[in-house]
């Protein structure tokens, strides 16, 4: 039927993109590529610093975004009343979600790199990515918390528990899978974004691992961007290889989130 054509037009190119990158990138993958340092202006050797950099950035983002995000979600689902204050928070979340990534990059540059004098650093990059990830974490966490039936809270209260005891011991653990799924989806976005880290942390040819949180680092998305657009004579295999590593990272996070979600959906007690 006609409509199925639409669905096919949407889905088939996705498969084509993934298949192409896998097929052409596989050739470049080797132990040295994944764990070796870059050499010769990036035209040879490995991308290990970029992989490490991305992982560090994702960890930093998680540390910064999870407390504020889950905390905010708890406030919205458990404490907030329907007043102007709450509406302004929801409006702010929708807006944060919509801000272009390059504007986040600019803000990160001005606020963290320059004003707070963190310099081009992992700290600046992670904080910028954290603000960008915040709306996703809050929205999905709130949904997870709201999906826990009210009975859980009323029973806890009837047994003499305070509000916070009810939240921390009953509601939160029940909502945890949903929250974790949301966090992983947010982190996967942070892992793949280039514009926010363009001005705040990314370095191109840094053939050593970052030494501290105030250090610059290579990162996978930025790396892919530079080697495919700015470096003449970059072997195609390395480009596809880097693309493949990024793709695998993103897809495995995606898969993890989906698996967690479906596993706990089946085990759910309500």
């Amino acid at each position, binding site marked *: 039927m*006609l*409509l*199925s054509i639409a*669905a096919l037009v*949407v*889905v088939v190119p*996705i*498969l084509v*993109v*993934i298949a192409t990158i896998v097929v052409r990138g596989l050739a470049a993958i080797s132990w040295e590529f994944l764990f070796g340092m870059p050499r010769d202006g990036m035209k040879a050797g490995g991308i290990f610093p970029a992989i490490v950099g991305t992982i560090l950035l994702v960890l930093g983002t998680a540390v910064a975004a999870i*407390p*504020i*995000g889950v*905390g*905010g979600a*708890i*406030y*919205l689902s458990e*404490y907030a009343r329907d007043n102007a204050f709450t509406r302004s*928070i*929801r*409006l*702010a979340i*929708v*807006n*944060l*979600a*919509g*801000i*272009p*990534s*390059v*504007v986040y*990059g*600019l*803000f990160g540059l001005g606020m963290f790199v320059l004003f707070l004098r963190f310099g081009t650093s992992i700290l600046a990059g992670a904080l910028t990515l954290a*603000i960008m990830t*915040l*709306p996703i974490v*809050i929205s999905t966490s709130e949904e997870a918390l709201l999906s826990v039936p009210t009975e859980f809270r009323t029973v806890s209260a009837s047994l003499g528990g305070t*509000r*916070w005891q009810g939240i921390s011991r009953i509601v939160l653990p029940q909502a945890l899978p949903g929250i974790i799924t949301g966090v992983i*989806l947010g982190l996967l976005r942070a*892992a*793949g*974004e*280039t514009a926010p880290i*363009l*001005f705040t942390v990314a370095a191109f040819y840094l053939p050593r691992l970052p030494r501290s949180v105030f250090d610059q680092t290579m990162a996978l*998305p930025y790396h*892919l*961007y530079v080697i*495919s657009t700015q470096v003449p004579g970059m072997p*195609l295999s390395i480009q596809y290889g880097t*693309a493949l590593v*990024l793709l695998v990272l*993103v897809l495995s*996070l*995606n898969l993890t989130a*989906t698996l967690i979600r479906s596993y706990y959906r089946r085990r759910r007690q309500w």
Partner: protein
Amino acid sequence: MNQSQRKGLSEFFLESLVRIAGFSTVGFVILIFLYLLQQGVPAFVRVSPANLFGKSWYPTLNSFGTLPLILGSILVTLTAMIIAVPLGVATAVFVREIAPNWAREILKPMIEVLAGIPSVLLGFFGMLLLSPVIYRLGAPTGLTAFTGALLLAYMSLPTIISVAEDALDAVPKSYRDAGLAMGATQWQTVWRVVVPAARSGIITAIMLGLGRAIGETMAVMMVTGNAARMPLTPNSLFSPARTMTATIAAEMGEVARGSTHYHVLFGIAIILFVLTFLINLTAAQSLFQKRRKGGLR
């Protein structure tokens, strides 16, 4: 303090903590906006409006005409929407109303995969594999506004599809049953009863997709050719163009802090911020109204 008073204090403390966490979102939005304003306003002071809204963008020659950039963004985004909206709504209708369960189990994860693909990856693919195709189809070069629009469409599709799906989901089953009971076929029920009932949700989906498309940076930067020309003829669709987002990303690295160019780039960021703010505000209104009314959208 007795135990009950201590509990009360820690309850208050924890509640304040999460309240601050919630409010931090508002704080961040205000902070970002104020910072953009602070850095961008000097542009409006130092550069005359005639220059700022002129037609030629040559920052090194002090010509800061942003019109080609604004029109470039509009051209690429609009084309992307023309492609994405019919595709997205049709796919949402298909997945929600018509597809058999096995198809749904495959489609939904695939759309989520698309949502997760980083823009730089799509841009990479577009640059190396899509633009030669466009070139061979007759365009002067493969890096055109159309190539960018195509990539942009695919990036907005997951947003449009999932919000539209939610809207269709919210239409009560009784509507469908009533349509069928009146003798309508499934096709007629879907297009004349369900979809109109989900209309406001679908519009929200389109607006959110639009907001996503305007703000996209890397994918368009890699395939639109980055030529700041005025896209005034129909041919412009198949010629290079430049978006506001690409301009900021490309030039921010090379600009001297505090120079006029620097401030103008922040001015462009203000335009982007305001645009997405307005679009999201409108979309949010309909989202909030949904929550209050419940039932029928």
